[in-house]
């Protein structure tokens, strides 16, 4: 019996849906087209098979997700992952946090940043660069968004140019989207 996970972790988790995933054998042509590209280009997961109930959204959403997180140039991959983590901390999405904390560790190579965020959530105290990015993403993710001119000023002081700030806006905002699907349509469970 798999167990629901409530605390932030870098473990590889499973995701158990609250909505029945579509049956690939019965998929419509539109659903098959939408399933050609999956988020992060991985195998077809239960999550994507749930999203395939709305193939029109999924078809554009999957490439958009991949470009925002992995598109060439601009903000570093690690800093985009930190943007995803800021949103996931505010929205309490344990599954998204696990994936993007692992990705951050791959690109950012700063496990101390992940540990501080897991311990203190949105109150994490980070160095100037990571703190400016994480706090911006977290404040943008509040409802209503709490970001202001001072938060943009912190990003500029940390050395981000305008294009990089737009990349961060996209990655943080994208997880306002992803968290609201992943956390509400299913739950993270321990493997095995």
């Amino acid at each position, binding site marked *: 019996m798999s167990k629901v996970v409530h605390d932030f972790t870098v473990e590889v988790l499973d995701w158990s849906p609250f909505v029945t995933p579509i049956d690939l054998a019965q998929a419509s042509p539109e659903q098959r087209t939408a399933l050609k590209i999956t988020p992060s280009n991985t195998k077809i997961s239960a999550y994507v098979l749930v999203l395939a109930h*709305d193939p029109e959204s999924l078809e554009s959403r999957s490439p958009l997700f991949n470009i925002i997180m992995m598109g060439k140039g601009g903000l570093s991959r690690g800093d985009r992952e930190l943007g995803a983590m800021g949103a996931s901390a505010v*929205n309490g999405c344990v599954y998204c946090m696990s994936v993007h904390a692992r990705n951050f560790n791959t690109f950012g190579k700063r496990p101390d940043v992940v540990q501080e965020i897991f311990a203190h959530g949105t109150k994490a105290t980070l160095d100037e660069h990571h703190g400016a990015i994480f706090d911006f993403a977290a404040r943008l993710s509040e409802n209503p968004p709490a970001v202001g001119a001072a938060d943009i000023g912190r990003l500029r002081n940390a050395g981000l140019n305008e294009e990089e700030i737009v990349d961060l806006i996209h990655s943080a905002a994208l997880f306002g989207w992803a*968290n*609201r699907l992943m956390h509400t349509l299913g739950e993270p469970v321990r493997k095995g």
Partner: protein
Amino acid sequence: MMEGQLADVIDEMIADPAIARLRRAREDVVQLTQRCYEAVLTPKEPGGLSAEERMALACRMARLTGVPAAVAFYDAHARATVQNQTLRDVAAGSPAHDPRLAAIVAHVDRVTTNPHASGRAEIAALVAAGIAERDIVALSELIAFLSYQFRVVRGLELLRGDAA
């Protein structure tokens, strides 16, 4: 512009040529974001959620999230396209009384403002109100996409130089 082809709605909300140019550093993000907007607001196959309902809910969400340029955009579009009085009230933030619409509105309000508070029971409540699974996913995409769009707009408002 061809008939039926929409202008980019985020450019329309921000209305600043310098920001529109800055966005074009990621032209593919701009185009796919617009396509996702059309997929959730005016899908070719709307299923059990009409375009009028979708616009009314979008306007309600914009008000709950309070990003000025998005509120102005959805207020204007809801006024122009939502004719049904019950849906006009929903757009303006009033409660809904019909059980189906009340369940949808409760989910919209919860997931917009505090997604962490939504879990298995909240999806079960939608099912109990007679909403099909495909419409539950479509509703979730509407809420989730707009939560993204409002935050992109908020960030761009700040880059445009709006005061905090």
